[in-house]
C-alpha cells in the first residue's frame, strides 16, 4: 500500500528532498559507481517507504534509457584510454575507456534521478506538489496555470482520444497496412491532423470561456491561490537540515569512495 501525503498537507519537505538528492546525484564525479549505487540505495529505501518495490522502481526508471543514444557516440569518439581499436568491414573505430566511463556515468545518474522523481510523485500527488511550489514562491500565474492544466488534462486527452478514434474510422489513421488504410498524401494527412488540433483548441477555448464565466459569477479573481494553502509544516526547518546533510553525505561519498 502506498503512503501518499494526504491532500492538504505541506509537501515542501518532500519536494526539497527530491531536488537536493537529484542535485547530489548530478554532482557525483565520472566513474563514481559506488557512490551512484549508494544513492540508488537511498532512493529505493525511500521508494520502499512509499510502497514501490525496488524492481518496479528500476523498471519505471528505464524511461531515461533512450537518451543513452546521445551518450553512445562519445565511447567511439574519445581517443584516450583505448580499450580496443580495429576495423569492421570498411569502417575503422575504437572503444575508449574514458568515453565508456562518461556514457555509463551519465546513464546511471539519469536512471537513479528519474527514480527519485517517481518516488516524489508517488508520495505526493501533483496538485499538492503545485501547492508546495506555490508556498516556495512559485509565481501565481504559473501555479494557477499548472493547477488548471493538471485538472483539465484528462478531460482534453479523452476528447483527443475520441477525435483520433473518429479519424481512424475515416481512414487517416497512422496505423494500418497499405496506402488505402492510411489515407491520402502526407500533405493531406498533415492537414487532417492540423484540423483536429485546431478543432481541439476551439473546444478548449470554449470550455475556458464557460469556466471563466462561472468563476467570475462566483467572485473569482482568476487565481487559484485564495484560501487553499495548507498549514505550514512545523518541522520543515529540521527536515530540510536533515535532507541537506543527506545530500552532503552523497556528494562527499562521490569524492571519497573509490572510482573506476
Amino acid at each position: 500500500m502506498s503512503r501518499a501525503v494526504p491532500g492538504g498537507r505541506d509537501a515542501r519537505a518532500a519536494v526539497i528532498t527530491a531536488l537536493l538528492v537529484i542535485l547530489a546525484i548530478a554532482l557525483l564525479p565520472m566513474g563514481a559507481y559506488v557512490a551512484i549505487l549508494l544513492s540508488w540505495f537511498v532512493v529505493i529505501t525511500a521508494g520502499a517507504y512509499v510502497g514501490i518495490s525496488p524492481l518496479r522502481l528500476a523498471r519505471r526508471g528505464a524511461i531515461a534509457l533512450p537518451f543513452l543514444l546521445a551518450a553512445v557516440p562519445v565511447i567511439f569518439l574519445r581517443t584516450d584510454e583505448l580499450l580496443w581499436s580495429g576495423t569492421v568491414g570498411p569502417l575503422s573505430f575504437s572503444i575508449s575507456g574514458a568515453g565508456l566511463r562518461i556514457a555509463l556515468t551519465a546513464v546511471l545518474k539519469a536512471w537513479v534521478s528519474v527514480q527519485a522523481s517517481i518516488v516524489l510523485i508517488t508520495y505526493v500527488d501533483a496538485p499538492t506538489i503545485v501547492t508546495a511550489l506555490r508556498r516556495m514562491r512559485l509565481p501565481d500565474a504559473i501555479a494557477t496555470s499548472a493547477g488548471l492544466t493538471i485538472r483539465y488534462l484528462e478531460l482534453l486527452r479523452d476528447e483527443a482520444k475520441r477525435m483520433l478514434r473518429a479519424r481512424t474510422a475515416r481512414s487517416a489513421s497512422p496505423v494500418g497496412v497499405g496506402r488505402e488504410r492510411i489515407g491520402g498524401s502526407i500533405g493531406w494527412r498533415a492537414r487532417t491532423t492540423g484540423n483536429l488540433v485546431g478543432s481541439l483548441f476551439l473546444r478548449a477555448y470554449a470550455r475556458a470561456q464557460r469556466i471563466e464565466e462561472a468563476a467570475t459569477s462566483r467572485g473569482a479573481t482568476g487565481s487559484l491561490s485564495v484560501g487553499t494553502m495548507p498549514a505550514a509544516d512545523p518541522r520543515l526547518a529540521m527536515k530540510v537540515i536533515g535532507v541537506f546533510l543527506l545530500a552532503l553525505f552523497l556528494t562527499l561519498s562521490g569524492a571519497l569512495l573509490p572510482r573506476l
Partner: protein
Amino acid sequence: MHLPDGFLAPQLALALWALTAVIVGVALRRLAASREAGGATGRPILMGLVGAFIFAAQMFNFPVATGTSGHLLGGVLAGYLLGPWAGTIVMTTVIGVQALLFQDGGLLALGANIFNMGIIGTLGGTLIARALALALGGGRGARIAAAGIAGWLSVMAGAGITALQLGLSGTTDISVGLPAMLGVHVFIGVGEALITVAALTFIATTAPDLLGAEPVTHTSLARRVGAGAGATAIVISLATLFASTDPDGLNSVAQALGFTHVEAGAPFNLFAGYAIPGLDGAASTIIAALIGAAVIVGLILLLSRVAASRKGDA
C-alpha cells in the same frame, strides 16, 4: 528532446535554471502589464486550458514514412494563439508538469528543458514568426506561412541547442551529436510546421477573431536594432567557438601545390588572422568579429542615410 537528469553538467544545468528564471520573470511581468491593460491573452483560466490542450494535441500524429510519424510540440502554436509571453508561460507549465507528473525530463534539467523548448521554441519561435509575417506583408496567409516556417525553425533551434548543451557537458561529442540531432529533427520539424499551418488555417477559417487577439505590431527601431545586435553577437560568438581551424579551400590548395610563398604581405595589419593584437584565444577572435560586424552595419547605415538624403535632394 526532454533532457533527463544526469546528462548535463550540474554547473550548466544550474546556469540554465538561472537564465530561464530571469526570462520567465520577464514574461510574467509582461503578462501582468498586459492583463492590467485589459489584454485577452493573459487570462489564467485560458492559459491553464491551453496547457492541457497542448498536452492533448501532442497525442495527434500522422504517418510520414514507414516507422516515422509527424507530431506536434506546440510551442509556436501556443505563442501564436496566446501571444509570445503567455505562450512561454504555458509551455513552461507544460514542460514542468511533464517532468513532475510523467518524468518526461529531469528536475535539475528542467531549467534547460524550459529554455530549449519554452523560451527558444516558443518565445523565440513566435517572435521570429511575427518578424517573418511582417516581412511577408502581414496578411493572414503571410502570418500562417510565417508560423509554419518558425515552427520548423523552433524545433531545429531547440534540437541544436540541446546538442550543444550535451557537448558542453561532455556527454556527447558536438561534431557527432549536433548533426545527428539536427538530422533527426529536420523531419520532426516538418511535421510541426505542417500541423501548425493546418491548425492555424482551420482556426482562421472557423474563428478568425481568435487569431486577431494578438495583432502583428511594428516594434520600435531601437528595439529592432537591439534584437538584431543581440542575435548577431550570439551567432558570432557560437560560430567562433566552433569554427574550424583548418585552412580554407584556396589556402589548402596553395599549401598542397606549394605556392603559399608567392603571397604578398598586406600593406597594413589591423586585426590580422581575425584576432585583436595583444589578446589571445577565442575572446580575441570574438571581439575582432564583433568589431568587424559593427563596422559593416555602420557602413550600411551610413550609406542608407546618404542614399536617403540624395533621394530627398533629387
